[in-house]
């Protein structure tokens, strides 16, 4: 495990050891990111964190190989570039990356809209550990399916 605890996308993070896949967690609450990271890391994923959409885009761009990114788990109510804008950006730039929304402010209309646009899951906080893992697993499988097709 990297000493930087997934705060940056350095070479070690991408290549080192066996990983179930790379997950980017975007949330403005550090503790939410932390529990998501711990949950996912325990299940064998490599996790990168970002505070908001802008930082998320930055992180992916500065990463060595953005193509390795499998899943993005993002909040939608965040300062600066919010999640919805970020989702549009991700979908455009990395169409093969699977997206999961995780929000404390659920909105049926935007959920329906996002699901139509190919969102894998729309999770309402507080999200149970098992549910997050199941969602990320599903998202990773979808990502693999897109990549191999």
């Amino acid at each position, binding site marked *: 495990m990297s000493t930087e605890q997934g705060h940056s996308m350095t070479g070690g993070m991408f290549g080192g050891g066996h990983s179930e896949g790379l997950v980017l967690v975007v949330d403005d*609450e550090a*503790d939410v990111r932390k529990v998501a990271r711990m949950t996912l890391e*325990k299940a064998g994923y490599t996790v990168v964190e970002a505070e908001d959409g802008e930082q998320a885009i930055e992180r992916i761009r500065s990463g060595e190989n953005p193509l390795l990114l499998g899943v993005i788990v993002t909040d939608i109510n965040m300062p600066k570039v919010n999640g919805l804008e970020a989702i549009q950006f991700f979908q455009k730039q990395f169409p093969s990356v699977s997206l999961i929304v995780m929000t*404390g402010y659920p909105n049926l209309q935007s959920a329906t809209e996002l699901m139509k646009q190919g969102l894998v899951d729309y999770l309402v*906080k*507080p999200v149970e*550990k098992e549910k997050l893992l199941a969602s990320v697993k599903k998202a990773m499988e979808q990502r693999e399916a897109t990549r191999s097709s």
Partner: protein
Amino acid sequence: MIAEQRLNTLILNAAGEGVLGLDLEGRHTFVNPAATKMLGFTIDELLGQPSHALWHHTHANGSPYPATDCPIYGAYKEGQVYHGETEVFWRKDGTAFPVQYTSTPINDELGELAGAVVTFRDISERREAERTIAELRRQNEYILNSAGEGIFGLDLEGRHTFVNPAAATMLGYEVGELLGESSHTLWHHTKEDGSHFPQEECPIYGAYNDGFVHRGTDELFWRKDGSSFSAHYCSTPLRNEQGILMGAVVTFQDITEQRRVAAQLLEAAKLAEVSRVLGNVGHDIKNMLMPVLTGTSLLEDELAEVFAFVLKEDAKTWTQSKTTCTELTEMITNNARRIQDRVREIADAVKGVTSEAIFSPCTLHDVVKGVFKSLQISAKEKGVVLYAKGLETLPIIQADERRLFAALYNLTGNAIPEIQPGGSVTISGQANSDKGVLKLVVADTGKGMSADIRERLFTSNAISTKVGGTGLGTKIVKDVIDAHQGQITVESEEGKGTTFHLTLPLIQTT
């Protein structure tokens, strides 16, 4: 002499009034051009002909006017001057015009009565103007009488000079009872705080005292029966043509209803704001609960691993320690879940206030099952049993399921903490297809409520008797039932429990 006659003729010809001379038999002896013009005859047609038969033969109402009745003849025969202004003269073409005329007897050189001179004017225009004025006056009166605002006039002593019916009605008097009476002493004598209102301070009085317009917002006007109402008014000084202050005209409105609506709007705005804040707080809490719940879950896993690795050198301490850890993590999780439930409850309440009802086919039995499932833990903790009776056979109704859930959740959830262990909440139902309604009864064996609490129950002023309660619960229930065009009543006696009776239509009509 001749010059003088010529001058007279010139004057007669130039006169705007009709001038004609009559002999003792009433025949025309001379006629000036204005007279021929007004009557529509030529001079030749008139001279020597009897005047009454030519242009004075019929009354204005069309009835014959006998010459013997004619005041023109009558007057000069008696040597009297006669003024008339209620009659008409007839033109040659058979039309008539209203006139003002004067008949003056004339004497010959010997002083003998020789006839009369009649001067006359067509007063159609004046009559028309008079009619217009009368019409205007009627209109003004009509406006004053039908105005919804109270309107009255005051003289310089503050006595009513006129009062419109709206003003009298609002003040609880007859118009006649107010006229001539002092306005201030009758209905403006006391301030809102109950103290005397001196006339010198009164803005209405101000208008006819200093000559400026004065307005009053929200002052009390007192009715004859001693009750009062809030009024807005405007007191405008009244001056005569010379600009001298004569008194004041006051218009006023009863603003009780306006105030009530304003208060209602404020209340609604407050509620909306509270709902918004509660909604935001709820979402924030959900966000914050995520690290707590997921973190605890991770901690449990971590502890399990730790305990698996730690040597069980001291088996007793190890077991104790593991039990404590489990108890603590369970406690954290349970309480976090309770916070989550409470937040959901608030969110549902907020939705009840802010969103439109959506009606779809709904099975009450399933709704009640859902409610009981959500409340299972708190009921169990309290040792309270939840019963559903006769709900399976109820027909499917048109309802907003989320709202019904919120209502039944509130009724049941509110009851549980008030019930002694071993008590129960029972929801039973019965359909009345003839009336197209379904009746639900939510009965508990709790401590019941006092009359005071019962009365405030379905209002925003309801008081919560529970620690941390919002007191909004039953208001939400009422809103839900209202949204379904249903009814809710409550029976309760202290010490004997509470029973709510809900009536819901099977089908929603718009």
